[in-house]
């Protein structure tokens, strides 16, 4: 498997999406077989971050059920998760960050040293930053990152980032870990309020069916219980494949044509990518869709809509404005 594929692995914001993106890009037999199904069963286990803050020590249980104790609020954080990096900045803890991944970009974080990819960072690059907390992907099957860091005496906190409850829980946990709970609570509150207001604005209106494109060849979409499907609902749309069992199902082009959605949501990454509108407009199957012919297409920056973090209200608003243009600006 190529490095190219590996880059693709990390470039997506959530591991589940990364799974899709990677699979889509690996142009080899292996990948085409991998693609055939996608993720079976979602991990049911989810811990409510049980927090208890005594005078100095912070004790939490992370999303992979591992306990974490800090003697003091974290001051030197390496974040391996773009959405967690964004959350830290949103609660005013930018000054606590000492490291980022190759996929955290933008003026606010560019000055930080990178430790490589989020899933396979350079261990020694992390150690050299002397972090007192590392935020990493939660994995049900793989605790190696936790163990490797534990061997170096570096605390690790695993974050699950799949749906909106994960977003709220992570905001709360990061607030506790950095002793910025008031800011975290107010961020969570404003997100809840904004999403509620958006949802209220579409009440009583017919919900058009929406196909959300995760990857196009073979087609993959967001199933129920993903934050994307939840945001579509908030924005007054109905996920075309909300009936699927898997969180990130592969769906046959034939089935998309049969269901013929009212709208297409196409997240756009780098220009001219495989998911770009120009390319899909002429692609077999896609060009036959009613939404494609009538221009019922919503494009969003993929970094905005693929990261379950503090910008999800903005993503929801842009979806709502696309699906219900008469409400835009309200």
């Amino acid at each position, binding site marked *: 498997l190529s*490095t190219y594929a590996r880059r693709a692995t990390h470039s997506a914001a959530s591991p589940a999406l990364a*799974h899709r993106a990677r699979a889509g890009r690996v142009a080899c037999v292996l990948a085409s*077989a991998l693609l055939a*199904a996608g993720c079976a069963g979602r991990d049911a286990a989810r811990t409510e971050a049980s927090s208890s803050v005594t005078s100095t020590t912070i004790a939490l249980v992370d999303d992979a059920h591992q306990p974490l104790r800090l003697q003091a609020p974290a001051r030197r954080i390496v974040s391996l998760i773009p959405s967690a990096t964004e959350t830290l900045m949103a609660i005013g803890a930018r000054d606590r960050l000492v490291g980022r991944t190759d996929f955290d970009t933008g003026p606010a974080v560019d000055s930080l040293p990178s430790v*490589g990819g989020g899933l*396979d960072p*350079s261990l*020694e690059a992390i*150690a050299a930053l002397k972090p007192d907390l590392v935020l990493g992907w939660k994995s049900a099957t793989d605790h190696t990152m936790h163990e490797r860091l534990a061997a170096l005496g570096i605390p690790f906190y695993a974050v699950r980032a799949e749906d909106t409850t994960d977003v709220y829980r992570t905001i709360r946990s990061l607030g506790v870990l950095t002793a910025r709970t008031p800011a975290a609570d107010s961020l969570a509150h404003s997100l809840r309020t904004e999403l509620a207001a958006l949802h209220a604005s579409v009440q009583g209106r017919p919900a058009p069916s929406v196909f959300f494109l995760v990857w196009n060849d073979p087609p993959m979409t967001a199933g129920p219980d993903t934050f994307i499907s939840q945001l579509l609902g908030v924005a007054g749309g109905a996920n075309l494949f909300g009936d699927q069992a898997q969180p990130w199902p592969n769906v046959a082009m034939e089935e998309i044509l049969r269901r013929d959605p009212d709208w297409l949501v196409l997240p756009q990454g780098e220009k001219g990518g495989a998911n770009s509108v120009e390319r899909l407009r002429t692609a077999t199957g896609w060009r036959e869709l009613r939404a494609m012919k009538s221009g019922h297409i919503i494009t969003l920056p993929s970094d905005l809509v693929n990261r379950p973090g503090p910008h999800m209200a903005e993503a929801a608003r842009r979806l709502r404005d696309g699906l219900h243009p008469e409400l835009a600006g309200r």
Partner: protein
Amino acid sequence: VRAILRLALLAAVLVAALLVGIRVGAVRLPVLAILDAVRGIGDPTTVAIVQRIRGPRTVLAALVGGSLAASGAAFQALLRNPLAEPYILGVAGGAAVGAVSAVALGGFLAAAAPVAVAAFAGAIAAVLLVFRIASAAGRALDTRILLLAGVVAGSFFNAVVLLFLTFADADSFRSALFWMMGSFAGATWRGDAVMAIGAAPALLVLFALARPLNLLAVGEDTAAYLGTPVERTKMLAYGVASLLTAAAVAASGVIGFVGLVVPHAVRMMWGSDHRFLLPASVLLGASFLVLADALARTAAAPTELPVGVVTAFVGVPFFVWLLRRRTA
């Protein structure tokens, strides 16, 4: 005597490679700080980087490189096939099936060590299965049938892995994929010790088989006329080479190219006497993987390249150059 000098030279190369492996990394460290850290003094972070990250990782790369190169040389002699390499008889496929089942069973089972254990078990099961298939075809072990059995079993294992990945969730998918790409990132001194304890006797057995392997490489009939216990040699070489491959794959996943090319390179440069070829392959293979891993860690630092990419990108041009030089 010349052979001994050459081996000494290769050993010196390996020592230099190990020093380079500890010298370079994603983090720039001054030489003096590294020297202090080796002795355990100075900045605790530097000590941790040198002693707990770079040290075990570099040593593991050497152990795996040596094992794969020796195993490849043995398979090439045993199967009398220049395309033979450590994974040709389905060992890697079996290991992958073991590793992905451990990943699939998940949770508490799947900390790093159990995946390695499951991969090793899978590899050994594959060796036994292939041997069973091959020996069912006749009384004596026919290496052509062994080769066929290995290739068929390998394809089957690949299919099993694909089937698993098709239904895997994102977590397992990712773990399995990273495992299959091969990496030394998870090295620990304890793992290195286990690997060394397994590989050292296996290598000694292979070295002891050098003379019979020389004859086998010519032809089984010739070897038999000259009094070589052909069947026993084949079984022993097959078993030991498979064991080396199984240990290497369990420790670091599938790392291609070393086992194929290093023995050929030694042959082209210095001839194919296995008494020299085997130890020289071990030393050269070890140096090659240590340097390849050093490059993988630094080329795009802090992003790590898969070490298999480096072995192919560096190894292929070198091999082509060797081929051209030989024909010229």
